[in-house]
């Protein structure tokens, strides 16, 4: 009996539930009229995942910068992050945080020390499995 319990515990330990990204359509507030557009690009899916919409980097009047995902939609997956990267493979990157939702307008603050000209790619990146879901080359 005890061996059965141990084997059951072993099987349970081998399983893991992965957190999927929320799907609620977001509409983050952001005033594009008062901000300066620095770079912009269009999302494209990768590795058979679908990502669509626009990626725009703005500088706000107070000097802070943000990445705006507009008219955005993405395939769902576990541990999706928003990266700014120097290439589509994320050879060097800045993690802007977990993807808030697979749908809608979303704003992600960019750390002050980030050189946005060095990181010309925005990525939707599954960090746990090191897989790109999509990219936008901003210019």
């Amino acid at each position, binding site marked *: 009996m005890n*061996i059965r319990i*141990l*084997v059951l*515990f*072993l099987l349970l*330990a*081998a*399983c*893991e539930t992965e957190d999927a990204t929320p799907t609620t359509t977001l509409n983050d507030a952001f005033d594009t009229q008062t901000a300066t557009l620095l770079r912009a690009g269009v999302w494209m899916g990768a590795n058979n995942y679908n990502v669509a919409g626009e990626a725009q980097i703005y500088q706000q009047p107070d000097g802070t910068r943000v990445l705006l995902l507009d008219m955005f939609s993405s395939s769902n997956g576990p541990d999706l992050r928003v990266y700014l990267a120097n290439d589509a*493979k*994320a*050879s*060097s*990157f*800045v*993690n*802007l*945080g977990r993807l808030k939702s697979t749908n809608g307008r979303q704003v992600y603050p960019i*750390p002050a020390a980030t050189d946005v000209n060095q990181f010309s790619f925005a990525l939707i990146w599954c*960090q*746990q*499995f*090191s897989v790109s879901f999509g990219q936008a080359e901003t210019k």
Partner: protein
Amino acid sequence: MRISLVLCLICVASGIVRAQSQPVLQSSNAFIAAGVRQGSLSLDYFYNWQPGASRKFQIGLGARITSYIGSNQYHATAPADLAVDVLKSDSLLLSTAQVHALNLAVQLGYRLSEKVSLGFNIDAVGVSFGANKNGRYLNGNQGQLVQARPTPLNILLVGNHDRGTLNSQFFIRYHITKSWAATVAYQFLFVEYTTAVAVQQQPEPNDRFRNKASMFGVGITKLF
């Protein structure tokens, strides 16, 4: 827990000296373990002394080869002085990790009954090998692609000062016959990679990253 492991080692070392003339039981174990997106196969051989008239205690020396494979595992900063402080600890995320380790090991055992025994073993020193792997070094909100390979030298030290890939098991063994037994164990395996360059620079340069893999497994043991 690591202190208790060292105490076990001291017990083994002192016990072996006293047990040289005691009856001997040799064991060889094939073991498979699984955890979250990781697993291992190991083969070991132990030469066990059985001091005392009851022959309930076993003190053994042996060798073990462990083959580990993992998928999408985080490896944390390994050096002890950095690992103790979460603010000084970064991580290396490897899409695939595969390490083979050959180590000398020690074992302590106790025979609970004619059919059941339990024990503990741990690797002490040895070598590791495996292919270079691409991984991502993660430092706060920044990261970069790096290459890493298994740390070649394994050695058990005090606390977090261990180096390399070291296996340890707490096991319960059911003796099916005098020659064969089934083993169930909790396995705690250190898997360590060294990056091609010291990717971590703060608060000091570091190239060693460790995955502490908790796994459960089963094995078949030959006694002779």
